[in-house]
């Protein structure tokens, strides 16, 4: 009974891999170039910012919260990095990276403090900070753009440098996914995210501070959003107020499709990454086969509903198992 349950959870990721593979096979029948290695590398690279944000969002959702401010965080951090680069073109990349992570972390901490200390529902907090962070970009930039010719070459070149056939942007996504796997499966902190989401009351008795754990989740989400902020504006070599507008919904969608339970406590790094990749493949594949962008939205939406339906069905199976074991005990 346990084996089937575990395999079911594992197969949730297996099914996602199969679906992604199926989409790629279907596309390749009409456009073989799509599955060429070079194109797959570019699809992965395109999806890397989404992967970074989904990793952070996953942690937040695991603790029964949600972070709608990630895209605004990304845009604000990106704008600050870009303006700093314009002012001090020779600043080393390391400084930009550290600043981006720090600034993103501070914005995440602000969300986290409001949730932890004031007990405001996360959806309200981050809906508010989402607008605040966007507003700050406007105040900083006066609504004007920072364009590629204003940025220095090493600043925009860093995410595009190719190492072992993959751009640095992709490598960063891979390394962060690896770090998150380690954190989530092998540390007390990672375990406490699952405990807080799975049963906050039990977590309290186990000596886990629920609010503090949620705070840390927001900080992690913010740091990853900040990191993605620098990488995003450097890669596209442009920064403006509305950058990545609406991207937070893609991020939440990636998590939900990846099997992260919106009720908290259930989900894996692998699921978040696969959810992001699924959206990335759809987004890149549909234009190739001449499908209108409106269909892209519809397909993403359908995928979300399918994923949630699948998750609830999986949960229902679990309920039946409980009844069955109760019957056996009788």
């Amino acid at each position, binding site marked *: *009974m*346990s*084996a089937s*349950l*575990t395999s079911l959870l594992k197969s949730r990721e297996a099914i996602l891999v199969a679906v992604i593979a199926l989409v790629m096979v279907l596309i390749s029948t009409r456009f073989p170039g799509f599955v060429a290695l070079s194109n797959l590398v570019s699809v992965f690279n395109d999806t890397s910012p989404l992967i970074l944000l989904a990793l952070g969002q996953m942690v937040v959702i695991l603790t029964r919260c949600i972070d709608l401010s990630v895209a605004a965080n990304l845009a604000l951090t990106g704008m600050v990095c870009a303006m700093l680069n314009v002012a001090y073109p020779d600043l080393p990349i390391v400084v930009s990276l550290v600043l981006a992570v720090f600034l993103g972390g501070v914005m995440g901490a602000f969300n986290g403090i409001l949730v932890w200390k004031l007990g405001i529902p996360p959806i309200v907090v981050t809906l508010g900070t989402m607008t605040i962070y966007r507003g700050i970009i406007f105040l900083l930039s006066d609504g004007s753009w920072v364009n590629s010719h204003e940025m220095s070459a090493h600043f925009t070149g860093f995410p595009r440098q190719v190492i072992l056939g993959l751009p640095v942007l992709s490598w960063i996504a891979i390394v962060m996914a690896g770090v998150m796997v*380690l954190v989530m499966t*092998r*540390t*007390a902190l990672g*375990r406490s995210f*699952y*405990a807080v989401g*799975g*049963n906050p*009351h*039990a*977590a*309290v*008795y*186990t*000596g*886990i*501070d629920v609010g503090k754990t949620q705070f840390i989740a927001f900080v992690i989400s913010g740091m990853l959003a900040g990191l993605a902020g620098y990488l995003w504006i450097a890669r596209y070599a442009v920064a403006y107020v509305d950058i990545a507008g609406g991207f937070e919904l893609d991020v939440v969608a990636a998590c939900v499709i990846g099997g992260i339970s919106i009720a908290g*406590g*259930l989900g894996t790094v692998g699921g978040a990454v696969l959810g992001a990749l699924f959206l990335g493949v759809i987004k890149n594949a549909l234009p190739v086969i001449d499908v209108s962008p409106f269909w892209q939205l519809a397909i993403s939406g359908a995928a979300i509903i399918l994923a949630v339906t699948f998750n609830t069905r999986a949960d229902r199976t*679990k309920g039946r*198992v*409980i009844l069955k*074991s*109760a*019957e056996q*005990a*009788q």
Partner: protein
Amino acid sequence: MAETPDGAQERPVLALDRIVKEFPGVRALDGVELELHPGEVTALIGENGAGKSTVVKILTGIYQPDGGQILIDGQPTAFPTAQAAADAGVTAIHQETVLFDELSVAENIFIGHAPRTRFGMIDRAGMKRRAGEILASIGAEIDPGVRLRDLGIASRHLVAIARALSIDARVVIMDEPTAALSQKEIEELYELVDTLKAQGKAILFISHKFDEIFRIADRYTVFRDGQFVGAGLMRDTDEGALVQMMVGRSVDQIFPKRESLLGVELLKVVGYSHPTEFEDINFTLRRGEILGFYGLVGAGRSEFMQSLIGITKPSKGVVRLEDRIKIIRSPADAIDAGIVYVPEDRGRQGAILDLPIFQNVTLPSLGQTSKHGFTQLAEEFALARKYTQRLDLRAASLDTHVGSLSGGNQQKVVIAKWLATRPKVIILDEPTKGIDIGSKAAVHDFMSELAAEGLSVIMVSSEIPEIMGMADRVIVMREGRIAAELEGDALTPETLVRHAAGIGLKEDAA
């Protein structure tokens, strides 16, 4: 056909005939009888776990009996849904009254059966007028237009009662209605009960307080361990006889025999108080001792334990462990000090159902299984295996999700989790509540073993046989204070009940 207090013969409006209700491994009701007569108050009396709340749930259509009959006016009937019970005129006013804060008093009274206008819309004016009439009939001065959240607890009770009357109830069930009321509010409630009696309602009154049972009830029915013990007229009985019926004769459950090898004093709690829940709790605990905490529901036992482990803050008081003052501000501090708490409500407070067994067990002990900040899976499995084997936990694998285990096995996982932290004091809150008899015996055996190994156990229990069979010494709490500390010959089922219920020992000794 029972005799009424007035000597007339009258048929009960509602009767239960040999009702049986079974849960996995437990027979909650075993052929119980109950008769409710129009214009009379019947008190349902019994210890915690006697089956009172199960009866209420059967009467209100929430549970279906596995055997026996429900009779209304002598006719067999069934309550397949809560609505069916309401349609038959049975209504319950619960301990925590179920009402809607944001709706008006009138809307609360009429929700689900509001009067309609000709066009099928809710007749707001008519509803408000009718609500006012009903409230006036029970002497409640409440404006039917105000929002419920603006009312105090006593007024909310009145609204709940008005709601019961609005559906033309014939049977009103009051489950511990005075638990949260002040003395003045209680007097008002008594008057209201008299009003309901005068209107010919049959009232089932569930209470632990003997003074109010004698004040208000016409009849009594006593349950013990899911069985019907006796019924009769209040005027033919006294406190002593009722207590005798409640606790029964001998303790026929088998508990592990053990030699008490009491060691030195380990824990000393002095003057522990809380602004609202308990006051001036003092006791000591020796190494290898099992200390029982007995009391009625709401006596403040769990609240005190939660404060002791840092979930809530005490207003004053000192904890000394091994002769050193321990400051416990959070559950993490308590775990570090070696005091752990296995909560009563496994589902809510105990296990994390989505995590596998081994991760549940190691959750508070990840420090033990970690190297350089990373937990080692092999060591986690070893730790989990060690403690689950000790508890004889049978599961396919330690990877099994706790949600798929039976209640007894979930309890074992929670206990294993706490033992793995190598505590000095383990607090078990209702350790065998709701688990099957086999698992109960295993938990009892295990408790004895722990004590024999020098661990000190605090056992909060409402089951008299368990307290009598397991504890070396018992502290009885009543209304947030220690009512008595009993051991040896002074520890009998009767003394426990009397101290817990606050019945004078001297006057009834005769």
